[in-house]
């Protein structure tokens, strides 16, 4: 059963076609990876699904509900969580506060103006639980800006998970990570429960092939091919983009 369906999705920036009539269906529980050269329109596609960008035309159906053009906060509440390609965090706040804000949105009462946040034990224990899951349990008191780049990537994932999504969008989760960190990230994502659907952009082919159930290839905003990893690696036009036209 499909959880996400893109129908004739199109996004233009002036004369530039960032998303060119994309049709794609993602099954519940699937690990779907989008690949494609720089500037292919991968991030733009994700931004339309999570609401940061408004599509020019076409439809986005999440659990059969039209979400194209909705505000990001509405889409988040419906169950779409995401990380950003470039770390997009609360840099001057602690690791705990970063995650706790997301937990508050989902499980707490953000309008509460009287009880100190630090005294709301349920929010804190839930946040710590998520931080331990991503391996940042002992870093909770640190300010995010003092973390290593790789650790900040983990905070990205922690915040996304704290929104309790059914569909998780990951924009190059391993970008800028050391090989060791990349390995950890791969096993972390692989271990996430299958109740969660993952749509992920990734450049590192080793990561792609160890996680993907299916792969989609974007090129100049167009969906060139979608299929199982083995099909994609045999696909000629894909080989051409990655080998042929390289200069």
């Amino acid at each position, binding site marked *: 059963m499909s959880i996400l369906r893109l129908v004739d999705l199109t996004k233009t920036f002036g004369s530039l076609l960032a998303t060119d009539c994309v049709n794609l269906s993602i099954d519940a529980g699937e690990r779907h990876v989008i690949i494609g050269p720089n500037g292919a329109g991968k991030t733009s596609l994700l931004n339309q699904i999570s609401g940061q960008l408004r599509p020019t035309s076409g439809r986005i159906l999440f659990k059969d509900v039209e979400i194209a053009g909705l505000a990001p906060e509405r889409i988040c509440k419906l169950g779409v969580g995401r990380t950003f390609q470039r770390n997009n965090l*609360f840099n001057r706040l602690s690791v705990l506060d970063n995650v706790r804000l997301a937990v508050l949105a989902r499980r707490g*009462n953000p309008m509460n103006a009287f009880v100190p*946040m630090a005294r709301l034990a349920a929010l804190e224990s839930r946040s710590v639980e998520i931080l331990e899951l991503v391996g940042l349990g002992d870093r909770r008191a640190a*300010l995010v800006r003092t973390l290593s780049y790789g650790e900040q990537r983990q905070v990205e994932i922690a915040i996304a998970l704290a929104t309790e999504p059914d569909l998780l969008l990951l924009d190059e989760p391993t970008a800028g990570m050391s090989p060791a960190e990349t390995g950890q990230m791969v096993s972390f994502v692989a271990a996430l429960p299958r109740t969660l659907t993952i749509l992920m952009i990734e450049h590192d082919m080793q990561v792609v092939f160890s996680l993907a159930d299916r792969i989609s290839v974007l090129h100049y905003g167009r969906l060139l091919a979608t299929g199982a990893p083995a099909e994609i690696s045999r696909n000629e036009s894909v080989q051409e983009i990655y080998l042929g036209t390289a200069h």
Partner: protein
Amino acid sequence: MPERTDAAGLPATRIVTILRYAGVTLLAALALVPLGLGDYARSIVAEVLLFCIFAMSLDLLLGFTGLISFGHAAFFGIGAYTVAVLGAQFGLHPLLGALVALVVAAFAAAVIGFFCIRASGVYFIMLTLAFAQLLHSVAFKWRAVTGGSDGLILRSLESGVTTYYVIFVAFLGVYFGLRRLIAAPLGQVFIGIRENETRMRAAGYATARYKLLSFVIAGCLGALSGALFALLNGFVSPAVLFWTLSGEGLIMLILGGMGTLVGPIVGAAVFIGLKHTVSTYSDHWEFVVGAIFIACVLFFKQGIYGWCREILVRGPRS
């Protein structure tokens, strides 16, 4: 990250203790002001306290929610004029007038905020300024109600000491109330919006709603300071709505340091203090304030309070 504890500095817990003792001493001294000071000095302290409320309310917007308003005088003026007009036209007691002022300001802030929140950056600044100037010209032109440029005289409270304590209690209420709010989820959401609005929205917050709420709370408290100003002065003129007052609020925040509650208090005290001391020696007090302001912007970006805290943490070098 453990708090820095350089040899020259003090551990964080000691600093908190020191600041807490300083705060308690200050509050005790403020409570005793009417016993120790004459009428004039007492009214200056009262003026400082009500401008502390003004600066703290502006800081909720600027320092905590990240919304740079250049029209906060609108609410100060709404507070002052509500008390004055209701007193002059209907004989309403000024303290009741102050309560009505809060309600009026809440409505006004909801309407003004509704339009301003839609804009961001420079457009937000200009819109807030425009609304405030609009109200200024209303106060100026609508002579039948506001007295125009002559202003309005209003009945004062029984005694200057009573007025002082009303202002002092309001100051305590606003300070401790805001402290509560900022530590609570709502305040943390404001801070989240200041730090990264895109991320807040992606985490499920309808940030426009929270920004409007911050605008309304700040507007109400700004109106409270204006109402107290009317009470203390016994006279209200269109100057309470002029853009220079909005600018003075911003200067107080930058002088004292924004994003804390003590910063605006320090800034308001320094600003009003300078205004009264320097203006007795020369007509150019604005020049002195301007020079200090420039020094703050250039050398202590955290303001005076932020700088003091830094010295306590780092020790007295550089």
